[in-house]
């Protein structure tokens, strides 16, 4: 890990300013991974809203389990998939704090399906940042509930077959029908413009909670070059050309009354 001053020097050279809510730690993520970008977006959003000191995050079991090393905020771990239940417990006893869960697609849409559906249905006043990279990253690239049909993974070596493995789950659309969900948006980090849009969605999710308006979830379509077996550049192309066809970006639901 570079010293704080060394990190700052290199930051300066690149004309880069690190959000205060992001620690100096060098992330363990693979080259081209989406988690780092999304961590940064959330850190920027927390800084801009001035909520860093009252935010508590729940890190999932997944590649981003080490979130507590990367955000300069209080973070709890949760058992795999129980992330929204832990976030619910925190928020209910500390309603004046800002609470978010950060979850991968295995954590949120497979083992934790019941927890996310019911947190949304209760209208828990929390934010969920959901990273859809269509695979299980941490365990070595197995099929996720979001894996595309025909996508090859460690456990779908011949490609995901609808008959054998079922279909990719569209989480936002699944939660849309629940009266308790307030704000659901799907974004991508497939281009600088889309990254800015993604940050606006994060800001809006936080504001929804600050206004006491209830449950919000932002789904990020994010690259996993390692387990997509693609270059970082091709992974971005894959998001922009293939993923968006199955998981159309946009506001799925907005009952916030915000702009």
């Amino acid at each position, binding site marked *: 890990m570079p010293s704080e001053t060394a990190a700052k020097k290199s930051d300066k050279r690149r004309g880069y300013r690190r959000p205060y809510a992001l620690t100096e730690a060098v992330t363990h993520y693979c080259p081209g991974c989406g988690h780092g970008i999304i961590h940064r977006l959330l850190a920027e959003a927390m800084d801009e809203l001035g909520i860093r000191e009252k935010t508590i995050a729940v890190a999932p079991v997944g590649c981003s389990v080490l979130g*507590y090393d990367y955000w300069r905020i209080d973070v709890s771990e949760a058992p795999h998939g129980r992330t929204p239940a832990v976030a619910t417990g925190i928020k209910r006893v500390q309603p004046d704090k800002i609470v978010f869960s950060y979850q991968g697609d295995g954590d949120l849409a497979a083992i934790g399906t019941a927890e996310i559906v019911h947190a949304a249905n209760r209208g828990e006043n929390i934010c969920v940042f959901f990273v859809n990279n269509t695979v299980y990253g941490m365990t070595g690239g197995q099929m996720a509930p979001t894996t595309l049909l025909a996508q090859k993974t460690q456990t779908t070596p011949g490609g995901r077959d609808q008959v054998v493995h079922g279909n990719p789950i569209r989480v936002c659309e699944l939660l849309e029908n629940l009266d308790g969900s307030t704000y659901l948006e799907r974004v991508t980090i497939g281009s600088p413009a889309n990254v800015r849009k993604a940050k606006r969605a994060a800001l809006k999710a936080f504001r929804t909670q600050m206004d006491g308006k209830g449950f919000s979830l932002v789904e990020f379509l994010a690259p996993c070059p390692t387990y997509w077996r693609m270059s970082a550049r091709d992974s971005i192309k894959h998001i922009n050309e293939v993923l968006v066809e199955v998981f159309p970006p946009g506001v799925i639901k907005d009952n916030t009354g915000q702009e």
Partner: protein
Amino acid sequence: MSANQILMSGNEAIGEAAIRAGVDAYFGYPITPQNELTAYMSHRMLEEGRVFIQSESELAAVNMVLGAAVSGKRAMTSSSSPGISLKQEGISYLAAMELPAVIVNIVRGGPGLGNIAPAQSDYWQGTRGGGHGDYRTICFGPSTVQECVDLVYLAFDLSDKYRTPAVILADGRLGQMMEPVTFDHLEPPNPPEKPWALTGAKGREQQSIKSLFLDPDVLEELNVRLARTYEKIEQNEVRWETLQMDDAEVCIVAYGTSARVSKEAMKRARDEGIKVGLIRPISLWPYPYEPIRQAAETVRFFLVPEMSLGQMIEDVRLAVEGKRPVYHTGRVGGNVSNPKEILDAIRDCCEKV
């Protein structure tokens, strides 16, 4: 019944004791025979302006407890056997994250779905950790409704003191039966400061609470620290009751409902001239090995009535170390032995030894 006593079921009394202990949040999921507890909390917690959620599952309930516990608040969940199995993952995490919490198990017949009648067949689960990994939970086995009250109150204090989850192992009969209880002697709750709690990094460094330690040496540090905590609990928190052991030739070891029935059997045996004494473990972990070890010096044999095929008997044998015979008796499947059955077992054993 004195003026300050009220008639309550075990389930409701446990709920009220938790309220008196200052529980900030309760999370539960319906399962018989503990439903009266969840129902009681559903109105009492709201009356007190505290948090109540009927969760979507026991998995969610125990993890909501975890969320309240990382926030530094007192939290409780309750269930019965199948639901407690589901909570075990969360209890392992609570232990690893050094979080206080109280988990109530109103034990029913098992394995599997079993039935809704009282049993003691979750003793191993309650006293051996129950989930994965090297850990223990404080485990109390009350035998009266008043003791349910006192032990729930104590469980909150000890769980905070040692930063480890505590389990109340009662059974369906205790949960359902009504007895006079008082809460008057319970002090207002006085939980310790919790500087480790996650309350937002305001004016201090960020904090995290976790159980992932990829470096084996670092995880080993946690394991060793937990072991030290468990040693302290073993030194300070062993609780038991002894009855008529002074001249006893036969020692019954029984807890909870089995101990109640055993007391009556003991009385009848003494009427027949058989000198029976009783050791009733109150803390099931840490276990009262020492009084049983001492009894092994003087009695002819031990009899362990349990509403299971024989689980606590292993702890009795650990204490006795082969010095005396240790026999099991009891009914299973949700049945409870009556005093006559235990008396018959005493007579049978007397003939054997």
